[in-house]
């Protein structure tokens, strides 16, 4: 059946105490040396608390969307095209060891491990998320400004764009065996967009490390653009001179442009973007804001540009 009524996520059925105990059980098993590498992989997929104070400069007046919706309803085509697919199958993704290769037009290219990113000063920011499919959420992310990571590699003045490449694990990602997207998933930002303080290198949500279905262990969050611009499970970051061609630009060029800024005045060819449905509401009751409510911070990046053409 194409539209099953969504199953209840296992974490909702299991009592919280039992669920948490699973973690101590795994820890104990790993300590006893009986779990081996399988135990480590499983332990890595279970959320760990992050030390990240909330940054009061980045809050949203609407209440955050319930965690189980944030982690249960995702567009992550590597795990299938259904939005309940990632929750069901992302547990298998291997997130340790994990490195990001950072290179291109930089003075000091390097490969950085997820452990090192987690050691950098993290903060919590509450951002709006607006999906191109006209639904929205409010999510407390944990991460650091992308420009802090960029500073480690010293981009040269020739770098005009940043290209983000997501992981492909054929064995654990059933969606990558389909031809829906030209894998790997690639996204890009203009250098000034990438270096903007709102652009967050994200390692967690709701105070814990990212669940796999949300793009573990590290992803980008660009809150003034439609959600698909924020690449998940990043393995490679390149500073480049030419505008990168994103996965969706390749898949449906007539519908997805490079910029993809949230814009109520530019409809998707197949549906209106004027309003949005703040999940889990039934009605599309919220008026979509230009730049998803971040116009004050980012509108100047696009001064003089025709945003109807540069969609």
């Amino acid at each position, binding site marked *: *059946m*194409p*539209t099953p*009524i*969504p199953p*209840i996520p296992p974490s*909702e059925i299991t009592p919280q105490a039992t669920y948490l105990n699973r973690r101590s059980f795994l820890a104990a098993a790993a300590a006893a040396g009986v779990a081996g590498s399988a135990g480590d992989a499983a332990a890595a997929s279970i959320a760990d608390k992050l030390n990240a104070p909330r940054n009061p400069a980045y809050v949203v007046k609407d209440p955050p969307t319930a965690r189980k*919706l944030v982690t*249960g*309803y995702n567009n992550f*085509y590597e795990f299938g*095209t259904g*939005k*309940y697919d990632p929750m069901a199958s992302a547990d298998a993704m291997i997130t340790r060891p994990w490195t990001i290769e950072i290179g291109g037009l930089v003075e000091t290219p390097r490969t950085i491990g997820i452990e090192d990113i987690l050691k950098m000063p993290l903060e919590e920011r509450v951002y709006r998320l607006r999906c191109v*499919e006209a*639904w929205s959420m409010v999510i407390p992310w944990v991460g650091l400004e992308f420009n802090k990571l960029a500073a480690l590699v010293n981009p040269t003045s020739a770098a005009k764009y940043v290209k983000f490449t997501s992981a492909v694990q054929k064995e654990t990602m059933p969606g990558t065996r*389909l031809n*829906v*997207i030209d894998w790997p998933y690639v996204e890009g930002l203009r250098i000034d967009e990438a270096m903007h303080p709102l652009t967050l290198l994200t390692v967690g949500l709701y105070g814990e490390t990212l669940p796999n279905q949300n793009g573990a262990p590290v992803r980008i969050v660009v809150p003034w653009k439609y959600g698909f611009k924020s690449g998940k499970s990043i393995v490679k970051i390149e500073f480049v001179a030419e505008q990168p061609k994103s996965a969706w630009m390749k*898949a*449906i060029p007539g519908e997805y442009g490079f910029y993809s800024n949230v814009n109520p005045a530019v409809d998707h*060819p*197949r*549906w*209106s973007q004027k*309003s949005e*449905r703040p*999940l*889990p*509401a*039934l*009605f*599309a*009751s919220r008026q979509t804001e230009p730049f998803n409510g971040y116009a004050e911070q980012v509108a100047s990046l696009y001064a003089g540009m025709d945003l109807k053409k540069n969609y």
Partner: protein
Amino acid sequence: MASSATAARRPAARSAPWWRDPVRLAKPVVFLAALVPAGRLLHGVFVDPEALGANPAETIEHVTGDWALHFLLLTLAVTPLRRLTGWNGAIKFRRMLGLFAFFYGVLHMAAYVAFDMNLDAAAIVKDIWKRPFVTVGFASLLLMTPLAITSTRGWVLRLGGAAWSRLHQLVYPVAILGVVHYWWLVKRDITWPVIYGTVLAVLLGYRVWQRLRPRPARARAGA
């Protein structure tokens, strides 16, 4: 439905008590089974919202749209089933299946009007005009409406069997438009539209084949 004519030809069928008539026994079962998807949605809306997932409006739109298509294809499967198996009782379910296609189609449209369009009449007209996948979906439901209205025995008699049959051939464009509607709305993964399209092509292809094959044999059989 031509049940009176059937009864006249086969008087034995009329005299069978209802508890020994498999068709009459099965009808209420099929009716209740056909209501199960709608019942689950109602239960979700009024009793257990979490059962409808993170995006309840989307779940309602998808489930009602899926079932409108399922019932359309089931309706179109009746005649081939009857011809291939010789089981004439199948025809007794056709009206019910067709009306359920219309029922789920109306719910599907109602969900779109309420949840996507916030009941804004001007926005709805504009949306139907502007977006091809909405246009064909709306056209499909619109063409189904006269079929639902004239589905009663009274209307068959009023129109006459031949005219009624011609009118009800509208079900073919209705089904084609329904599948096209689904095909055009999916973002990238066309697996399911292809499956529906294939089933529809087989059901319509069977009819074309029936028309095109040599006729004398059929004429003799009918005589």
